[in-house]
């Protein structure tokens, strides 16, 4: 009989390695499917809350705020104002970008919530809240109806948006 007080073996059973592989096939749902398909045509769709009129981008089935259905699709502009931003100095998994770069929250014209995007064609130190930016799309024939269809946003050179125009959309 083996005595339990003996030292356990150090090799080769100190650890076991388990690799977990779980594949998923996500259903976009009709809302996201319409939104993603529109990107192919350089259009950005939102959904409008039936109670407050607020426009959500990407479209949501219901307003998280009013709890009412958001069942009308509307097109919003592919340009807007930076509401908040950060300057990334450390590499992020899955993104092969030259450091430092700017990640920003952009309130598109016609939308009541902002989307997140990369800002390029500008020095990070020149980026500011209220800065007007526009989408830079992949060329025709190369868009697939996914978020990569918008490569990044860049400054338009327009005058900055006044804070009161985006303070409710931070």
């Amino acid at each position: 009989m083996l005595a339990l007080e003996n030292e356990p073996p150090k090799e080769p059973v100190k650890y076991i390695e388990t690799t977990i592989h779980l594949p998923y096939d996500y259903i976009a749902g009709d809302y996201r499917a319409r939104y993603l398909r529109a990107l192919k045509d350089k259009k950005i769709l939102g959904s409008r809350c039936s109670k407050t009129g607020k426009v959500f981008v990407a479209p949501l089935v219901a307003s998280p705020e009013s709890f009412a259905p958001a069942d009308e699709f509307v097109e919003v502009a592919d340009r807007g104002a930076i509401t908040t931003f950060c300057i990334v100095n450390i590499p992020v998994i899955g993104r092969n970008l030259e450091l430092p770069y700017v990640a920003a929250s952009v309130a598109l014209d016609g939308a009541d919530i902002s989307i997140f995007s990369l800002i390029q064609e500008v020095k990070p130190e020149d980026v500011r809240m209220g800065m007007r930016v526009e989408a830079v799309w992949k060329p025709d024939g190369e868009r697939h109806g996914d978020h990569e269809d918008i490569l990044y946003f860049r400054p338009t050179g327009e005058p900055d948006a006044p804070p009161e125009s985006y303070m409710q959309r931070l």
Partner: protein
Amino acid sequence: MTKLRNVAVVSFAQAPIVPTDEHRTATEMLYPQIKRALADCGVDRDAIDYQVAGSADYLDGRVFGFVGALDVMGAWPPRQDIHLEMDAGFAAYYAWLRMQAGDCDTAMVVGYGKSSEGRPEQVLNLQLDPFYQAAIGLDAISTAALQASAYMARTKVSDRDLAEVAARNRVAGARNPDAQVRQAATADELQKTPWAVTPLRKGYIPPVGESAVCLILAAEGKAEAMCNRPVWIHGVDQCAEMQTLGARDLTRSAGMQLATSKALRMAGLSAAKEVDVVELSAATPVEELILREAMGLGAVGSDGPVINPSGGPLAGHPLMMTGLIRLGEVFRQLSGRAQMHAVAGATSGIAHVTQGHCLQQNLVWVLGREKRWT
């Protein structure tokens, strides 16, 4: 028995169970059910004090995926909320406990998830011990088959007996508009279906399905105004057993026996057979037989309550919702909302919820038409 607070189920809404909903995400499936459950009890979102959800992020494939559901649960202004990585039937138990503590009068309980997006058998394999059980590829069907094999050896129950239990559920499920499998089947037909994992045939196990469910609970004083026939909770109890499959007798459910006896005592009943209707979260015919034995219901065919008039999990088994649907089904039966699959004159019932492999954890609800405590 200590006097407790009377709490009732006042509303229940369920999306019909389907193999896959190609048009909606899990939260998009959930939103209309929440709206319907609230509309059916005539209140708006602000009337609900507390909310609790049951789902599994591994099934969703999204880390902290459950927070996405808050967008359709009406979480503004900020709400008291909790999430359980369990069947939403257990979430209802949490809500009931909070009501006993007296810090809320109304609660919304939701269950959701899209099993079709992932590989449930692989996810359920990961629930097991990684050294001895997960490593050899056991999943929920093979552990249920181990249990079935042991049970058949102990009781001499035959393949034919299993087919008959499954057939009775399938006949019942054909009358339930929310069931996934709505084709009735005979024991002869089911006994000819191919083996899934012996001794379980494909006809004895549920298909993968998905749904979205919302149930509303309300305490005495509010429940009466929210529902014409509230269904009152008379007793509830839950027991968990050990994880190691080889260390427990898989042919019996000691946890279910204990949970049932304690819930019955709370309800002031002496035996489960006194109720009119029972909804069991039995994912195989053998689990149904084990649960019947643990509840003291006697052999199949003996007098007693109607078991699974909805068709039970064999007619539709949306993971993380199956148990809450059992509670909702008993509500439907006792509140006159069951329609095609109604059990005539039912005034009391038991709903059972389970989690884990081979009935590891069991929750028992005893419900009635009248308030329990006066």
